């Protein structure tokens, strides 16, 4: 994924009002095609960083959707309707990715030129060690519910720790070097290992 392009027309071509969003004039509901490889943060008009206010994200998503959802273009032209569907799909994707901490970190990393999960599957060696150790503990615990609950709490704790590390590393990637990006990739990859363990442990 290459660095996102940010071309936002400054004025609505239809009503000349200043454009607040790159894809819709909130005054007259004229839609604009989303720039290729749109920046999800720019789309939702949020600062490009890991630590975001989730409520603000949801608010931004809903207010944008209220302007572009295809249901509000029922009386419009076929072309406008199709554009509304495509824009909504894009905005839904942006919201889905930015809302999920792990996907958000991955997105920030890829925007900064880091590797994708598909191209770099490495995990910090200490995490692999932990996971192996925990698997043994699960086996030993057998049907001991109390012990399984303790293991579960431990895994949840480790996962939260890794997410904290991710937050520190991903919040601002402007000065990050290649080593930093490789490390962030492996931290993000490790969350999946904890998630797999949690899905195998009983009780939520």
């Amino acid at each position: 994924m290459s660095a996102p392009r940010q071309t936002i027309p400054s004025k609505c071509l239809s009503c000349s009002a200043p454009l607040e969003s790159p894809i819709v004039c909130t005054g007259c509901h004229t839609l604009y095609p989303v720039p290729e490889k749109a920046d999800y943060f720019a789309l939702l008009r949020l600062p490009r960083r890991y630590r975001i206010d989730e409520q603000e994200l949801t608010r931004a998503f809903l207010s944008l959707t209220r302007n572009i959802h295809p249901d509000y273009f029922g009386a419009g032209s076929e072309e406008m309707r199709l554009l509304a569907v495509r824009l909504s799909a894009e905005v839904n994707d942006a919201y889905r990715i930015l809302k999920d901490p792990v996907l958000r970190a991955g997105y920030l990393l890829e925007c900064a030129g880091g590797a994708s999960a598909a191209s770099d599957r490495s995990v910090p060696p200490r995490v692999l060690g932990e996971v192996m150790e925990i698997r043994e503990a699960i086996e030993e615990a057998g049907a001991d519910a109390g012990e399984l609950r303790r293991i579960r709490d431990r895994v949840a704790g480790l996962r939260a720790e890794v997410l904290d590390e991710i937050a520190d590393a991903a919040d601002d990637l402007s000065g990050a070097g290649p080593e930093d990006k490789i490390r962030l990739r492996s931290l993000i990859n490790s969350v999946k290992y904890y998630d797999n363990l949690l899905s195998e442990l009983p009780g939520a």
Partner: protein
Amino acid sequence: MAEEHEIIIGIDLGTTNSLVAFADERGPTLIESGGDGGILPSVIGFDVEGGGVSVGSAARAHAVERPLTTVYSVKRLMGKGLADLAEEVEHLPYRVTRRPSAEEGRDLAAVDIAGRLFTPPELSALILGELKQRAEAHFGRAIHKAVITVPAYFDDAQRQATRDAGRIAGLEVVRIVNEPTAAALAYGLDRREDATVAVYDLGGGTFDISILRLQQGTFEVLATHGDTHLGGDDFDRKIMDLAAREVAEQFGVTIQAPATRQALRLFAEAVKIGLSSEPRKTLQIDLGGELRYERLLQAAEFERMIDPLVERTLDSCRRALRGAGLGPAAVDHVVMVGGSTRVPHVRRRVGELFGRPPYTALNPEQVVALGAAVQASVLAGARRDVLLLDVTPLSLGIETLGGAMGKLIRNNVRVPCQATETFTTFQDGQTAVRINVLQGERELAADCRSLGVFELRDLPPMPAGMPKIDVTFLIDQNGILNVTAKEQRSGQEASIQVIPAHGLTRDEVRRLEEESVAFARQDLEAHRLIDLRTQVAFDTNKTEQILQKHSASLPPEQKAAVERAMAELRALAAASTDADAIHRRLQAFGRMTIPLAEIAMTATLRETLDEAQ
């Protein structure tokens, strides 16, 4: 100035009953013209000798005497192949077969009515056509657009089939809305509080559970699950199976005659409904001759019989909760929708799962149609304060080399959504690529449902692996898949030929639409003209009676004016075939005679009082 909005109707096309509603600024109302309290039984009757087709109560009335040509529960056949319906077909008195097709891999079920094959969309179109006519009679003008609801768990083929049915009936289906979402819309409209709501929708043939977050006019579906082959019909079948088994044991005969089976089905349904309010009901079947089967069925026994079915719905509820990342306690309200939620055992078990009594104050039969009407008013541009955000119920993917399901879009992802995948060729000079598109949660392609084969055509001949075609899979707000393809180098759109596995091709729909539109135009005008002329005769006769009886209490010039208008209306109705003109004149006449009706009423009231004294 108030804008004139186009009329878009909301339709609940149900397994057992279908309804049509309309919403204006005062809110949604059911359209009740045509009788039956606005509830049209989803039954189609073919009178093979007479050559007529009836829909609704009239068709159902002949179900026992014409079991082979009375079609019910057609919704269960939508978007299905004969192979999918092996179990279903056993229970149906009419004949289901496979529509012959030149393309391999296509399996489209059809109903055989005295040698003529009808696909499920064609049959559903007859029901939609009747609802359309009822709405047209109500508004006195032609209707061209509708919002139609479908079970949330309907796959792409079932949704496409529903849209095709609309088109064949002469309706552009401007939106397909999931039934539980429509119900939530009708439920949540008056309540402005934020809440998490579970909609448990058990209809005649389908089950859905949707978990929604309601806030400030936004109806956001968090997760959905269901079973498109589970409903009240299956409760009836439990009773039918019991009776059939015991008849065989007691009398050594099997119930085979289609008429007897049809009668048994109607009887089982009546017993089920009775057991919702009474502790026991008697099952009686005349088997002909001296043979008569009779037995008392206790509610508790019925509940034991249906419990495994109810348990299946609860399992779906648990999956939906998991999909939403919520526990049962996080749900503020459980809304019951669909006629089958009248069964007390269903209510009890659902209440136990969620730890709170379910909300049953809504009319479970009407709420979906009312919600569809509200959504229709949004699409007509009449309101912007409501926003439905729904999800795709099933994962979408493609068959990969080796027969695995490669997921591109996961279930419970908000729609519209899209995914792009790049394809290439494996042989030098290859000019076409076939993609098998799948829906489902299983790992193997063979265990998922094929939506059909999408063939990329007219690729420029190049060495193997050289062409790069980006194929975009877009699921729109209706939950329907749209596929587009672009060759990377040239940027040129590639052409895609779609062969639906269990549906009609575009050309087939177009042909059916043309045939039916040609018929429908004549039919509709004729039908409307007959209705209007009947109404004219009725209204003018009535007015004439009032004039005769109460001429003393009427100013002479007013009497003369009414008589003149009456004569003109009668002349127009007799001579003209312009239904719109007759309708306008009839309405004007109605307004003009309002004072007359008041005089007649006052006079009648006085007479009644005089008599009483």
